[in-house]
């Protein structure tokens, strides 16, 4: 009863970081259109196991669009052409019988391929470690309502904090720039009064780490915003640029 389609996959296969990778052609037949994209890969992998071959490796976990693990570039677009979804939320009904689907890993020098479609995104963790937090010790907090926060600011902070750290912004950028990610993480805290004390340190630290990781530079094409599953705004990038300038000036003035 379920409708099925046959598609041809052009999948990136790479044994490990040290090996060279290449595109391989794999047939995916009788795929139910109601299956998710990752379930399609599950079905293909079942077939590969039955044939005695190694499976296609890809990152995934929650499969409901929130953990940020899944990370496929599908037909040239991070998370596929559907707007505001992660790969796991993309369904096969978006494809037609006979389609050829190109599946590649999120590519960036800062995201080395671990195997097939899996990449190492720990660079993003290191950016957070460089200042993406409020330095408060457990137990030292005052009453939560002692600090009213303007609703607009709280909403802006929340909108930035919706980032799931999937790295699609990096993957979509022709320069592999991480500005949308970094700016969203910085804006989340820089918008809030709790984040003011360390704002300068945070901004300078996170940008320096971002640069050190080998991400490219933003050239304002906004591909990142277009593919972001959480529709994070490039406003955050403008804010980070502004905050970086003011933080640098402040740092300069203080050191004189």
């Amino acid at each position, binding site marked *: 009863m*379920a409708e099925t389609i046959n598609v041809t996959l052009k999948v990136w296969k790479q*044994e490990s970081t040290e090996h060279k990778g290449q595109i391989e052609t794999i047939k995916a037949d009788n795929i*139910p259109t*109601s*299956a*998710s994209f*990752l*379930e399609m890969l*599950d079905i293909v*992998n*079942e077939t590969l*196991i*039955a044939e005695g071959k190694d*499976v296609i*490796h890809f*990152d*995934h*976990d*929650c*499969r*409901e669009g*929130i*953990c*940020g*693990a899944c990370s496929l570039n599908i037909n040239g677009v991070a998370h596929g052409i559907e707007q505001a979804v992660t790969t796991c*939320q993309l*369904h096969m009904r978006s494809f037609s019988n006979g389609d050829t689907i190109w599946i590649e890993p999120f590519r960036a020098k800062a995201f080395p391929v*671990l*195997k097939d479609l899996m990449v*190492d*995104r*720990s660079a*993003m*963790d290191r950016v*957070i*470690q460089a200042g*993406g*937090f*409020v*330095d*408060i*010790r*457990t*137990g*030292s*907090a*005052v*009453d*939560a*309502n002692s600090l*009213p926060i303007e*609703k607009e600011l709280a909403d802006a902070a*929340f909108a930035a*904090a*919706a980032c*799931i*750290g999937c790295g699609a912004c990096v993957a979509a950028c022709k320069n592999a720039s991480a500005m949308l990610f970094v700016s969203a993480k910085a804006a*989340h805290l820089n918008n*809030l009064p*709790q984040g003011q004390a360390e704002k300068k340190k945070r901004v300078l630290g996170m940008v320096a780490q971002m640069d050190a990781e080998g991400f490219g530079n933003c050239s304002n094409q906004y591909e990142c915003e277009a593919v972001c599953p959480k529709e994070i705004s490039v406003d955050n990038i403008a804010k980070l640029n502004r905050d970086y300038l003011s933080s640098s000036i402040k740092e300069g003035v203080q050191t004189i």
Partner: protein
Amino acid sequence: MMSSYKADSTVPHHQAPEGPLSDKWSKYKASAKLINPANKRKYKVIVVGSGLAGASASATLAELGYQVDCFCYQDSARRAHSIAAQGGINAAKNYQNDGDNVHRLFYDTIKGGDFRSREANVYRLAEISTQIIDQCVAQGVPFAREYGGLLANRSFGGAQVSRTFYAAGQTGQQLLIGAYQALSKEISKGGVTMHPRTEMLDIVKVDGHAKGIISRNLVTGEITRHAADTVILATGGYGNVFFLSTNAMGCNVTAALKAYKKGAYMANPCYTQIHPTCIPVSGDYQSKLTLMSESLRNDGRIWVPKKAEDCGKPAVEIAEEDRDYYLERKYPSFGNLCPRDIASRAAKEVCDEGRGVGASGLGVYLDFADSIARLGEDAIRARYGNLFQMYAKITGEDPYKSPMRIYPAVHYTMGGLWVDYNLMSNVPGLHVLGEANFSDHGANRLGASALMQGLADGYFVIPVTLGNYLADQKPGAVTTEHPEFAKAATENRERIEKILSIQGTRSVDSIHRELGLLMWDNCGMERTKEGLEEALAKIPEIRKSFWEDVRIPGHAGELNKELEKALRVADFIEFADVMCHDALNREESCGGHFRAEHQFTQADPEVQAGTTQEGEAKRRDDDFGYVAAWGYQGEGVQPSLNKEALVFEEVKPSIRSYQ
């Protein structure tokens, strides 16, 4: 009926201090053993898991000065499955001035848990709840706010006050990012060494104490020994024993099961929470179930066709008189808003009768046509727009035009490793936090309580109670040179080689699906003695099939997802066994454990008096008012049953009624 299970010689003791409930935690803190700050840095702590409990514990313990090693199987600590929690987090702040207080939150949680949790732990949880909100706000967690700039609250099931703090529909993500950022801060300061993409394979016990773990680097396949002065497990629940659940694909029971096999008690594993409003399974390829907010039941009417032959027709073509609004029919006073477990079981019942809808026949309609006609499409869009959108994305159907299809799904597991008031298991030095332990939710968890418990354990309980254990330990006494480490590493290496050498015909997933289906049918929403005995008879067959016929491509010394899955599934199979034993032993119905033999009927005086309804769970406090702590006795051997009697000093167990 007398249980045929034997008890061990030692009976676990909860270690909660004496005295009035409200004083226990202060009393404990006042007398807890302390470690001098200069000495703290000599102690090494292993934390397995980086969800709310693991990340908050790692960060806080590092702040205190301990050397922490934190492990997670995900590529980043931020991806732990706490991230998926939608609803909110409870706290007895009483910001709404609606009469909330610590005692009320405590009582609601105990009652919600169907009087199967330990009073002292739950009271402490309620007490700590307020500090959690303060801590999270200070970290910059963007909770929803009112126009005045103060924190907003909403009400949640099982409570008559508004005490739930939330951040749109992604409270879990925001809280986890808060904890992850605290963790990141400590990583940058050198207090925590993070081990992502690393899976714990085993616990190492030295002289009876948990003193380390064996891990596998998921990228290189390297097996590594890690020694520490204590081990903390914060590894989440076991919902994936059913294969299909709302859990993430990687969620597993391995750490808890390994602890169980090393002597830790597994407590109440039969308590599983099943959520009535999930998007149903659409085919046998399905990998995961997605939860939709229960609030949909406020405006949707639930029905199935009266005649099985109508099930294939489009919903709109089924005439009104041919529809069976079974909840409204069976429970006229509550109708579509009857409690979760009843709604879930009723759906299963009609589907078992062959009247389920959708391709798989496992689904019921949730119809908004009446509400749309009454209130207009815009009003419904305003209330549920994002949920309708999510539904449309997943199913490709427009819920404004045709009814949604829903079906219950496993969502949370209340059972877990047994812990005392210190959150330490009966294995000294082995602490267990969050969903992985059994402690605070009894037989059923209230909405918005899971996040509260994870953070309470990590931020506020373990930093105090850990000292109690460590104060008596000489720091660094055990190193990886101890023969127990070599032994455990070898055992695990051999196990991996054995799995890889089978090269049979079946994929790991196919075996996992078989196990999941068996558990869902026999140890799911409704359990019977016969069903559980059948499951217990079949589990060894599945185990045999796994160990003789599984096929894993690739080898051990590389990134090998199939191998990872296989190691987890092998553990789920063993876990399923103790879970069924627990369900079989518990000859009563309570919370997330429903035994068909034990439900209220018309003949019961409580039903006649209107205290409860027909079909509601029937508890048997006199015979089962205890925590069932199971001890491992060997593969294929019946586990031992150790009972911790639940003593209620403050509350009086009553029929859980929400009428």
